[in-house]
Structure formats: C-alpha cells, structure tokens
C-alpha cells in the first residue's frame, strides 16, 4: 500500500473520524470480531434470523402501502394486493410464509442455544434478550395474522384476547380495554395494525442489544469451552462466507414454499371473510403457536391454562439457574443430551396436540407433554446437573482437531 492516500481514502478517513460507523460494523460482524473457528452450521441461524427480520420489515412496509386497516375493507384490500398491485402476490406470500420461516429459524436458534448451553454464564443477559425478541415476535405474528381479517384472523383474535378474561376480578375489563370495545372489532383491528407496524422496529432495537451482549463474551461454540485467541478467526470473511452459503440453502427451501406451495402453511378458512356470527368448526392458531396452544388446553381450568402457557416461555428466563451443570455443551453431558432430545420430541408432540381437537389421545398426550415440559426444567435440569458425570473436556478447541492427524 502506498503511503500517499487517494482522495477517496482521505474522504473516508475524514468521515470515520467524525462517525466511525464503518469500523463499528467491522467490529460487529466484520474482520474485527473474532469468532471460534469450530462453529458448526447450527450457528448459521442467528444471521438467518436477522436476514428474515429484514425481509419481513421490507415486504411489510410495501404491503402496508396497499393495506386498509378497516373491518369493511381489510379483506378486500388484501385481495387487491393479490390481484392488482404489481407483484403484490409475491410480497404477501413472502411476508405470510416469511413469518413461518422466521419462526423455524428462531426455534432452531433457540434449540441450538439449549443444546450447547449458550444460556450459561457469562451469556445470561444475551439469553434474556433472545427471549424478549421471541416474545415480541409472537406478539407481532399474532397481530399480523389478524390483519387479513379472514375467519381465522377474527376467531384467533377472539380466542387469544379472551385468555385475559381468566385474570381474576379485572379480567373482563382488561379484555374490553384490549378490544377497544365489547367485541373484537374495528378498534381492535386498528390498534393491531399500529402495533404490528411498530413492534418489528422494537425487535430491531433488541436485536442490536442482543448482538452487543453477544460481543462481550463472544460466541459460544460446540465444545462449550472458552475459545483461546489462537482458536478464533475473524467473522469476515470466514463466517460471512459460511453464512452466505447457509443463506443460499435456506432460501432454496423458503422460495420453494413461496412460489410452489404458498398456502400450504396457512388455514383455508382465512380465505373466508371474517364473520362474527359464524364460528369455524376448529379454531387453530398458526403452527408456530401450536405447542403453547396445547399447553393452554391441557388443563380444564382456564386461568391455570393461561398461567401455564405464559409460564412455559417465561421459565426460559431462569433456565441459566435451573441448569446446575457448569458444563455447557451437551456433547460432554451424556444424560442431559438424552434429556434434550426427549424435550425436543415433547415439543413436537405438543405441537401436534395443539393442531387436534382437545379430546382423547391428543388431550392425554398434551397433559403428559405439559407435565414433561415443566418437569424437564424444574426437576430434571437441576438434579441432572448434580448427579451427572460429564465426559472430560478438551483443553482447547484445537486439541481434538489437531490431535487427529497424529493417530
């Protein structure tokens, strides 16, 4: 490099001295962020989640330009987007399916964190921020599903907002306050639209905090041990390249659904305009809420069901202290590893139960599943941490790798 800088480089330096935004990005996800070199493909899902957030915001803003948040026009305006707005069908299918894929990505991201113990010290606050993002996503997705004002929109909104009526004494008043009236109606749709537009930007803010909190201790890794400086590589170009490849694979699946099966994840009833006088035979939420819906319906008492449902997510906040083991990665925890996969299957089974009518086998399974869900967190995790003998940890990330050729 010549010592004489060109005018472009000098202009760049001039700007960086005043607002070092490029070096800020470089430190966040560029050459100045050292990441462990042994991250596997499960570590792709953080950047994928960030990508989906951007996709959702961009398609959402464009959709909002042609959407009308009024009970008499909402359904029609969505159909107008599908038929008359240029590429409107593409925007809507990318947005509607994007919600599903956002949740797929985030759920894998969360399960990865659970498997590799990414919630443990010193990453508890990072984990908390992640749960806050999940809660905000759920609220945003729920309100977004109401906007097309189809049958499932209306009745889903009715069922979920009615949950708050289970609160003793003031429950009914709270529900009326949420609705802005005595039933789900135009004020409800208006405020849901306003909040659905607002919350994604709140999510962006929490994501910034999430990445900030990530950079204090740095990324966890599949071994769960602290990565020594010599075991780290710069995020760019190594992980940007790896993330680009992962993004391509992800997009192939996402686009296949968007272009070839765009209604496969939706419910047919939502193509029927909302009708407060005709209740659908089965009111089911979107698939990403089904495990929580199963927990809600697993008990006869409405209040208890609501408490259990919210507790099933809020319990994640204390996960770092419920898990008493100091070993992070499940790869070195033989008993926890089995329990993790049982827990994973329980979540899938709960999801299936949520899609069924709450009777017979699905009801029994959702009771067993709900019990196991809390048993896992409240009993198994603390106890296993005490009784389990972990496998011996490698002294460094490179040890098992570099040792191999010597065999």
């Amino acid at each position, binding site marked *: 490099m010549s010592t004489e800088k060109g005018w472009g480089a000098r202009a760049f330096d001039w700007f960086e001295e005043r607002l070092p935004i490029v070096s800020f990005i470089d430190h966040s996800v560029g050459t100045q962020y050292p990441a462990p070199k042994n991250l596997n493909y499960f570590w792709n899902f953080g950047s994928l989640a960030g990508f989906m957030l951007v996709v959702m915001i961009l398609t959402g803003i464009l959709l909002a330009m042609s959407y009308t948040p009024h009970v008499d026009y909402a359904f029609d305006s969505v159909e107008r987007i599908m038929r008359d707005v240029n590429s409107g069908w*593409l925007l809507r*299918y990318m947005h509607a399916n994007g919600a599903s894929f956002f949740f797929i990505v985030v759920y894998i991201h969360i399960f990865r964190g659970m498997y590799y113990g990414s919630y443990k010290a010193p990453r508890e606050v990072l984990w908390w921020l992640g749960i806050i993002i999940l809660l905000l996503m759920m609220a945003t997705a729920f309100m977004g599903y109401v906007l097309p004002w189809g049958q499932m929109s209306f009745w889903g909104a009715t069922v979920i907002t009615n949950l708050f009526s289970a609160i003793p004494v003031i429950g009914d008043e709270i529900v009326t306050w949420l609705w802005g009236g005595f039933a789900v109606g135009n004020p409800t749709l208006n405020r849901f639209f306003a909040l659905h537009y607002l919350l994604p930007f709140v999510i962006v803010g929490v994501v910034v905090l999430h990445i900030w909190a990530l950079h204090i201790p740095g990324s966890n890794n599949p071994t769960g041990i602290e990565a020594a400086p010599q075991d780290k590589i710069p995020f760019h*170009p*190594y992980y940007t*390249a790896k993330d*680009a490849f992962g993004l391509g694979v992800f997009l*192939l699946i996402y*686009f296949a659904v968007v272009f070839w099966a765009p209604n496969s994840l939706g419910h047919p009833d939502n193509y029927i305009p909302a009708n407060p006088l005709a209740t659908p035979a089965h009111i089911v939420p979107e698939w990403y809420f089904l495990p929580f819906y199963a927990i809600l319906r697993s008990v006869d008492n409405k209040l208890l069901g609501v408490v259990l449902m919210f507790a099933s997510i809020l319990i994640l906040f204390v996960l770092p202290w419920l898990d008493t083991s100091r070993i992070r990665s499940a790869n070195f925890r033989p008993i926890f590893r089995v329990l993790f996969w049982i827990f994973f299957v329980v979540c899938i089974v709960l999801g299936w139960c949520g899609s069924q009518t709450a009777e017979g086998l699905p009801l029994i399974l959702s009771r067993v599943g709900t019990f196991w869900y809390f048993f896992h967190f409240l009993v198994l995790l603390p106890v296993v941490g005490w009784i389990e003998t972990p496998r011996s940890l490698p002294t460094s990330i490179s040890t098992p790798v570099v040792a191999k050729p010597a065999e």
Partner: protein
Amino acid sequence: MRTGVLSFAAVVALAFATFMPAGPALAAGEQAELDPQEWSWQGIFGGFDRQQLQRGFQVYTEVCAACHGLDYVAFRNLEEIGYSEDQVKYLASLYEVEECCDDFGDPIYRPAIPADRIPNPYPNEQFARASNGGALPPDMSLLTKARANGPDYVYNLILGYEDPPPELEDEIMPGMYYNTIFDGNQIAMARQLFDDLVEYSDGTPATEAQMAKDVVAFMHWAAEPKLEVRKQTGIRVMLFTFVFTILAYFLKRRIWADVKH
C-alpha cells in the same frame, strides 16, 4: 347495546338453526372420501388451460351465476383467460351495473365496462338468503382456496349428489339435498349439472364430470389468477438461488482452506 347485539346474534343463530340444519345434529352420514383429480396447474411447471377456463366461464355464467357471485373478478381479467379486448367489452356490455348517482340523487344504470367487477346476482346478503331458503350461496372467487383440498373438494361436491340412503330419507329437511361430500350430508344447493346442460363452442362433450372439472378450473383461476406468473418466476428465482448457493459453497471452501477445523 350489548344486549341488542346478543339478541341479534340469537335471532341469527335461530335462523341458522331453522334454515340451515347442516350441523352434526342430523349428520348420520360421514363425509365421503374425495376422489383426487389431475389438474393442469399441478407441479412446478403447471399452468392453466385457456380453453378449459373459457369452458368453465361458460358454465359459470350459464349455471352458477344465477346464485353465486364472483366479486373479486373484473371483466378486464377475462382477457387473461384468452378473450380479446373487444370480446371482453362485448361481454361486459351484456351486464347492467348500478352507479351513484345522477343530479337528483337517483341511481344510474349503465352497461358494464371492462373495468367493472362482474356484478353479483344479489343486491345484498339478506336478499340472497331470502332467495335461497335462508342459505347464502358463497362467493366463488376464492372458494377453491377457502376449503381444504379446494379444487378436489368443490369438484367432488358438485358431483356428490345421490339419492339419500333409506334410513336418512326422512331426515333431509325441506329445501335441502343429500350430498355425500358436504359436511352433514345436507346442502341447500340442489344438483346443478346434468349431461349436455351447456353446449361448448369448442365441441368438447359437455358431460357432467367435464363441466364440473371445467368450472372448478375456472374457479381456481379466479382464486389464484397470478398462479402462472408465480410458478414461472419461481423457476427463475430457484435457478438463480441454486447457482448462488453453489458459488457460495465453493467460495466458502476456498476461504476456509487455510483453517484447520
């Protein structure tokens, strides 16, 4: 106010109970299995058959349109199924639409133009229900997407009329018809299709099954008019993404070549 809403709901519920006993109370029969059909739009290269859509449009106008609206389809959209601009103008001019208003506040009636939506057979829901024994003929523009396995469901339902089994004969309410596909096996729509009910200009024999298939194809086009552009765009996007992914894979391997891991 609240009581008013509730009693209104009760009256409507009562009306439903009186006129539409489609609920499981009388459902002795189970919904029959759908006989899945092959449709021209299936598969990643699938599309519509313009001839079939035009035949289906003919069935719609000559049979279904007496009771079913097609609210989201404008005459101009018919150019997409192969009619020329002049043909569409002519088709539209056969309909009369109401518009607000002349200088005295009276509605104006004028021939439809391509920009108009296809007029609904009924001025409002109450009129539609009053004309159909309390039942509301659903709008047909989204029906194939608003039912599970929509195209197969509608096709089988149209052809699902049979004489009721003897044990159910007495349970069919007046004004209702036995149908093997409809939930509860009683439907307010009578059987509509009979062989040679319409005469196709392209010479296709108008069997009951052929007409059912054609009209369902037309309905699916009405429900998903961007299906072809969606699938064609999909091929291009997938090819691009595939090449991108391959390149990204080799780029990643090359960048990582010097890392022992």
